[in-house]
């Protein structure tokens, strides 16, 4: 048993202390390994399947073919598992009660929130970038190996598409993190994420002449991953430019994080 009570040192806890702690938290959870592993496997598996499906077509098929987009489009699946990861990062704390320990350890909630969102954003973005590059190289290897047209990072728009795809999927995961902050429940947060990102567009198809250009999955495939202008004449809507598309997704994620963050600051832990 401790004999004398230590006096409290000078200074105070800062964002850097909470950042170290949050990094350790992410690294010491099995759900991290599971969701990250699942994201890699699912993302690259679908990438391989999509690329493989583009091989051995008749020559005319490759008119306007976009090898970059074809190597990245499998990552939409990674957007799904990435969203689950983003939500779990925060809802896991609520379901286990860890959030109370976190708030008690660092009661200035803006500091805690800043560290939490910052660590989540950096970790998710780094991971999504690595995955995006991996998918690109895998896809191109399969395409060129099978004799189909392929691209390199030097091809027009390719590097932009790969980098932006990583950022975009990271933003989707962060939007899900925002839902997690708002709803504090794993099932509810994942349902909200999947509902808005993947189900809502299907529902919108029921509307006559829906404008789907603002839907995350559509921005991702048609604006971010694409390096070929797919807009055409005759009423086909021109996709958003990559920059506008990415900005829009950043706004979506920002709104979810802002609402979730505001509730986190106000509510009882």
């Amino acid at each position, binding site marked *: 048993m401790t004999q004398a009570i230590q006096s409290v040192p000078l200074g105070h*806890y800062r964002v850097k202390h909470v950042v*170290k702690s949050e990094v350790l938290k992410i690294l010491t*959870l099995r759900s991290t390994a599971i969701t990250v592993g699942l994201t890699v496997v699912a993302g690259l598996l679908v990438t391989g399947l999509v690329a493989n499906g583009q091989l051995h077509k008749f020559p005319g098929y490759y008119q306007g073919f976009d090898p970059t987009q074809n190597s990245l489009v499998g990552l939409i699946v990674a957007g799904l598992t990435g969203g689950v990861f983003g939500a779990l990062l925060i809802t896991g704390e609520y379901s286990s009660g860890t959030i109370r320990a976190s708030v008690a*350890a660092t009661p200035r909630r803006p500091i805690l929130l800043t560290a939490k969102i910052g660590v989540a954003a950096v970790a998710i973005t780094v991971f999504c970038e690595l995955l995006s590059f991996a998918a690109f190289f895998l896809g191109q290897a399969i395409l060129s190996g099978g004799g189909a047209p392929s691209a390199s990072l030097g091809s027009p728009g390719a590097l932009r598409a790969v980098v932006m795809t990583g950022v975009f999927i990271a933003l989707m995961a962060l939007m899900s993190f925002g839902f997690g902050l708002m709803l504090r429940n794993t099932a509810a947060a994942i349902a909200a994420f999947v509902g808005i990102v993947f189900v809502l567009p299907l529902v919108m198809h029921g509307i006559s002449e829906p404008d789907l250009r603002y839907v995350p999955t559509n921005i991702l495939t048609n604006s971010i991953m694409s390096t070929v202008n797919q807009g055409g004449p005759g009423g086909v809507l021109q996709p958003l430019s990559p920059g506008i598309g990415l900005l829009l997704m950043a706004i979506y994620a920002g709104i979810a994080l802002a609402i979730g963050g505001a509730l986190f600051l106000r509510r*009882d832990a």
Partner: protein
Amino acid sequence: MITAHSLTKRYGASTAVDNLTFEVPPGLVTGFLGPNGSGKSTTMRMIMGLDYPDSGSTLIGGKPYAELTWPLREVGGLLEAKAFHPARTARNHLRWMALTNDIPLRRVDEVLDQVGLSSVANRRAGKFSLGMGQRLGIAATLLGDPGVLLFDEPVNGLDPEGIRWVRHFLRGLAAEGRTVFVSSHLISEMAMTADRLVVIGRGRLIAETSVSDFVARSGGGTVKLVTPDLAAFTSALTAIGGNVSDGEGGSLTVEGLTSPQIGEVAAQGGLRIYELTPIIASLEDAFMELTQDEVEYRPSTMAGAAAAGAKE
């Protein structure tokens, strides 16, 4: 030192904590006593800065919790049985907590050793029994070697050995000069652990007193006396103001006198004592009496009987 001043917390229409004012001084174990649902946990969460009060305030050593510079080095709190992620190991749970307050990581192994969890430090905490979970929670409170400690129902789910350990442990912390605030709905537990009591019911303060005063206020308690010298004891004890009645199995029940007083009588009169037992149930009676109208949840038949008895 913990202080609560006019603390009030409402959930919709119901008031969980109602204008509560009390003090928890250092160097003593202060018991926080009240029936289930009386607002003990809510009060503790407000002290720890987790819940925001609707009005009033709580201070730790004169400062609101949120303004503490190194909270874990100033306050340790065990507020729920399992406030850790089940997939994380005990050691990693304590390590992330230590990092938030720049506490040296060697403290993690020290506190694990202190609560007897060293051998399972690398096991996932989700696999822990309730008792081991409580020990991990207690280890977490000690990480920063804080001067103020709060424990919400720390003996819940513990076996007798564990209960004894916690009791001894809490007394040890207070003996080192720390402020120890421990809640319980078990008055018998508090009678053995606490020096002072803060008693609440339905969120309102009922009593803030020492344990002995609390007993005295409720009529002094009774002592069970087993002796073959029934008549001699009865007259001698009645003579010094005791109220003696026949108990079960040929024993006497003495009201208004303490065990030492009865022992003195025996020594002076050369009377034989086979057994002398202060009856702790009187403390429970006192508690029941005080909280009679303050219990939020009780069976309707009891409530009906109480209402009929009170002619409300």
